Each structure stands twice: as C-alpha cells, then as structure tokens.
C-alpha cells in the first residue's frame, strides 16, 4: 500500500498548493468572491462542515464499537478510527470558522452562548466531544507511546514526550487504560449522538424552511454520519490498517464492508421516506426543495453523484464483491467521497426556494439570487482545508503509533482480547 500512500501525499501537496489561492482570497477579500450571500446564505463551506463533522462522528462511533462494546474484529483499528475522527473534526471546524463573517469573534460562541439556539448547544457539545476524543486517543495510544519511547528517531522522541512521564506500560497499567477507555468510549456514544444530532436539529428547527423542518432531519444526519464515517474508515483500514495482507486484515475490511452495507440500506430507506413523503405533500410549496434536487439545474448532483456513484455502484460492489477487500474498500471510498453531494443537497435546496413570490426579481445584486453554485474560491479553499487534513493524517500515520503493526510495539498479543 506504499503506492497508495505516495499517491495520497501527492494529492495532499497539489491540493495544498492549488487550494492556497482560495485561502488567500478568503483572507484578503473576505466574502466578496463567493456565491453565497443574502438569499442563499450558506454554501459549500457549510455543507463541507456538516459532511466532515459527520464523518468524524461516524468514525468515532466505529471506534466506540471497539472501546465500549469490545467488538473483537475491529480492535486493531480503534486508534485509527479515533485519529480519523480528530482530524475530520479539526478540518470541519476550520471550514466553518472561515465561513463566519467575523471569524475573530468566534470566541463569543463560548463566552456569550445563547442556549435557545441549537448552534449554541452545538459549540459546547463539540468542545466536550473534542476533549473526549483527545483523552480517548491518548489512553488508546499510551502503551504504544511507552513502547515507541525506545525508538531513536523523531517518532520515538515524540512518543516519549507524549507519555507525559507516564512510562508504566505494565499489564496492570494497560488494564487501567482499557477501563478508562471503556468509560470514555461509553460516554462518547451519547455525546457523539447528541453533538451530531444537534447539527441535524440546527436545520430541523428552522420552521421557515419546510424541507429541513422535519423530525427526520437529525436522524438522517446521524445515519448519514455513521455511513460516511464508516465508509471512510473501511477505505482507510484497507490502505493503512495493520497487518496488511493478513487474513485478519482481510476479515476486518470485509466486516466493515458488511456494516457499511447495512448502513447504506438504512440510509436509503430513510431517504426514500423523506423524498416520498415530501413529494407527495398535499401542500405543493413544501415539495419545492425536493423538486429542485431531483429536477433542478443541479439534478446530476443527486442522480449521478449521489445515487449512481454513491449508492447503487458501491451497493452492488458490497453485495456481489463483498468478500474481496479491494472492492469493499473501493465501495467505501465512493460512498465517503460522494457523500458531500448529500450534504450539499441538504443545505442548498432548503435555501434556494424563494420564501416570497417575486423576491428574486424585486431587487437584484450579488448575493440576492436563489441560484447557488460554489465559486472557484469556495472550491479551492475547501480543497486546501481537506489537503491540510490529509497532511495531518499522513504525518500522524508516520509519527504516531495509530497503527499497531506487529513488531512495532511490545504489547502482548493477548492484550486486546480481554476487551
């Protein structure tokens, strides 16, 4: 898988360099060269934010299968899933931070929280989730840090530092770590559900937008999070997971593929419920957003990107080639990558329907339009943000013991079995 890793490095470097222009434009010119504005106030960056944060929640819940429920088939990838969850959380928050009109006032969210706003709740749930993620990852890596401390390279020095002086990796100490992990993992489940549910609720509570304003919205967010996060972890496990080529690795990927297939089926069911009820709506105006998704100018985002490449194709791969890790991983990558179209199709069509007849022609100007498509600046900045995440992942993969490949640690083979 070295080849893959090199390819990802290349993508990260190109994305970082090219995307830097988007960052420059956002910092230098603010919100001038963007497509969102007054009538469609949220765009690609908000969609990317709910997408990435969903991936984070999904990846975390996969790790919770290991640490809270002790699912043995996944025990080797718990750390990788946690690490992915932290990185995707970090870049999602960066996306939304630069989306703010006044990023320098973001501290107000914590200092002057309005708890009648779902966004106010979201901030605190994120903070709690972030602290929990960091703590959990530390406990998950603690024994590996101690083991790596013996190394003479940079990773060894970093591991020594990150032990924070706690060099005890005896069986007892590891047992302690594991019980802490079980507590943190168990706490994390309701927390992850609450925080991503609050992201869904943030949209769900907006009565002015009938498309968002349903009790199904937070549930769709959660299932979508599990699906996109699980799919990404499947791909990552295939490429970066421990003991590649072993029967155990193969088994892990196939098992993940089965989970993803089940989630894909559940997500499709919910989507069917949402669209069939919405379109049948006896108040035609309420179906306007969905008609926009299915038959509007960006119909291909739903039919081609989401349905064909993100649901049908990977679904077929998982059903008919579910025993071949490479196919399963490809399906995972397709689902995870195309899921941004689902998030875009939540954010934009909810806003792109005029709230009052005649508004679109009443007073015109930049931002006073209902037709949204991201500008080059928006795409480039998002590419830059994702590249930063990719860098962080690739560097972390090298210098942190997020993958406990055999021979690199001194953890006895039976350590995890107790879970």
């Amino acid at each position: 898988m070295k080849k893959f890793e090199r390819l990802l490095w290349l993508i990260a470097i190109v994305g970082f360099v090219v995307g830097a222009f988007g960052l420059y434009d956002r910092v230098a010119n603010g919100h001038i060269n963007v497509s969102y504005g007054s009538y469609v106030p949220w765009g690609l960056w908000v969609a990317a934010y709910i997408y990435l944060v969903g991936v984070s929640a999904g990846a975390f819940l996969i790790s919770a299968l290991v640490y809270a429920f002790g699912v043995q088939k996944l025990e080797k990838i718990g750390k990788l899933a946690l690490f992915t969850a932290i990185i995707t959380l970090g870049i999602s928050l960066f996306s939304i931070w630069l989306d703010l009109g006044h990023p320098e006032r973001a501290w107000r969210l914590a200092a002057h929280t309005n708890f009648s706003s779902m966004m106010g709740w979201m901030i605190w749930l994120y903070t709690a989730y972030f602290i929990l993620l960091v703590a959990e990852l530390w406990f998950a890596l603690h024994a590996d840090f101690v083991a790596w401390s013996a190394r003479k390279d940079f990773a060894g020095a970093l591991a020594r530092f990150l032990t924070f002086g706690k060099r005890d990796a005896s069986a007892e100490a590891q047992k302690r770590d594991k019980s802490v992990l079980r507590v943190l993992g168990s706490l994390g489940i309701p927390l992850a559900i609450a925080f991503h549910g609050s992201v869904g609720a943030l949209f769900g509570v907006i009565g002015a937008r009938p498309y968002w304003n349903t009790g199904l919205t937070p549930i769709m967010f959660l299932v979508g999070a599990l699906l996109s996060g699980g799919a990404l972890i499947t791909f990552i496990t295939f490429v970066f997971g421990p003991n590649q080529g072993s029967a155990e690795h193969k088994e892990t990927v196939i098992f993940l593929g089965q989970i993803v297939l089940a989630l894909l089926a559940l997500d499709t069911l919910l989507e069917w419920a949402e669209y069939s009820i919405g379109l049948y709506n006896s108040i035609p105006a309420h179906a306007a957003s969905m008609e926009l998704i299915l038959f509007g100018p960006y119909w291909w985002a739903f039919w081609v990107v989401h349905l064909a490449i993100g649901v049908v194709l990977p679904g077929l791969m998982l059903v008919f080639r579910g025993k071949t890790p490479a196919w399963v991983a490809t399906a995972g990558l397709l689902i995870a990558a195309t899921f941004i179209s689902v998030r875009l199709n939540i954010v934009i069509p909810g806003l792109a329907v005029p709230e009052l007849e005649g508004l679109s022609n009443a007073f015109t100007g930049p931002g006073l339009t209902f037709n949204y498509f991201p500008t080059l600046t928006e795409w480039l900045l998002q590419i830059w943000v994702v590249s930063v995440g990719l860098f962080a992942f690739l560097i972390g993969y090298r210098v942190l013991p997020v993958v406990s490949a055999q021979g690199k640690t001194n953890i006895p083979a039976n350590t995890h079995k107790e879970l």
Partner: protein
Amino acid sequence: MTNEATLLDKYASEVFAGLVSPALNGVQISAAPASDLTKEDALVRMTAELKRALEKPASERRWVMVIDLRKCVGCTACTIACVAENKLPPGVVYRPVLMEEIGTYPNVSMKFLPRPCMQCDEPPCVPVCPVSATFKRPDGIVAINYDECIGCRYCITACPYSARTFDAGRFYTSDTPQLESYETLPNFEYSESWDRSKGDSPIGNARKCQFCAHRLDAGMLPACVTTCIGRATYFGDANDPDSLVSELSASPNMMRLKEEMGTEPKVYYLV
C-alpha cells in the same frame, strides 16, 4: 351665464365651485373657511404622533407600519430611500418591492408588495442567534448588535420573510477609480456611526430593516414613509389609540404576511 353658474353650483364640488364661480359670475365672494379647504398631510399627523410617542418610555411604545397596497404604484422610491438612508451596499436590501403580474391578457395588472422587516412579536430569527446578538427591543424593533454578531447567518435562514441580508463587504464603485463618498461615509443605524470603508462591521454581519430607529430617535419618520409618493406607507405607535396606524390597522381589510406561522408581524397590509 347664470344657467351655467347654477349648473356648476349644483354639480361641482364645493372647492371647485369656490374657485370657478367668482370667475364666471364676476362676483366677489368671501374666501371659504380655511378648515374646509386645507387637509392635513398624513406625514404631518404621523410626525406629531411620533413626537407624542417619544415622550413616553420606550417600553410603552409599539412601533408598527401599515402599508396600503391599493395605493402602492410600485415606484420603489421607498427601496431607494432606504438604500440611501442606510447607505446599503450591493447585495443588501431592507425593503424590496415584490412585483407580481396577475391575471391573463387582456385582464392583467401588477401587484406590488413592499417588504420591510416585519418586526415580529415572535421573531424566529432571535432565538437561533448563537451569541444573542439579535434581540427584540422594548419598543418592538428587532435589532442587531453589529459589534456582537459573528456573521454565521443562521438568522437569515430562520426568517420566513427573507428580511435579513448579509453584508459581504462589497462596494458599488469598487471597479471605478475611486470609491464614491456616498458609500464610504458612515451610516447611522441604531444611532451609532458605522464606517464600512475600514472593512469593519456592519461588513460581515447580518443586516435588516430597523424602522430607521436612528431617525425615530431624532423625531423623524422612517425614510420609506416620508418618501412614499402615494402616501401608501404609514408609521406610528400602536399603543396610541388616536394614532393613524391604530385607526388603519383596525380595518377589516387588514392582512399580515404568513399569518399562519404565528410570528405576529408588526407590519400590516391594507388590501
């Protein structure tokens, strides 16, 4: 001559007759009593009512607007007056006039709907603000604290009337040799001086109609009200039972936008 004069006396209005009959008859008649000829402009009455309201504590005022759609000719003077008063940049508008063509040829006409902020009593935009930067003032105006707003635009999504817009920092004359002073001069929303030319707030904020709160403070009616050529927009204190808006908003032909949402708008339309 006399017959014509009689005819006029019989059919013409008092005013018309008063003006014409002396010319026709060559008879000097005394000027009609002033009270019969002068009619107080609605603006004069509303300004007096405004002064009266300002003498009360803010919490006892209830600013409302009444828009008579039968009188609106769709000239958009109110929109432009608002843009000029608040020095609104491209992409920001507080009071567009929505136009709709109704009927089928040959029975076609235009319907005009000026849409300021409704200053709802149950504003959906207020509870969603994560930092409490937008709030309902005691006098009923839904205001934004520009210094506290973080620019997340959640409130814009929550407004059912699209009454909030986002100031992205654009200038009308940015592609010309120099920014014109009509854009770079500060505006005085909420009775404070806001200088956009430095890139500061309200750039990056949500913005909205606030019934020209700064003009009210100075005893002046909102810019859209004074500019309306047809006197189709009325403004005043609903807590004052003798005010013009109290009279008008009690008409059976009064309606409010999206009444079914329960937002309790404080802008009334006469249809």
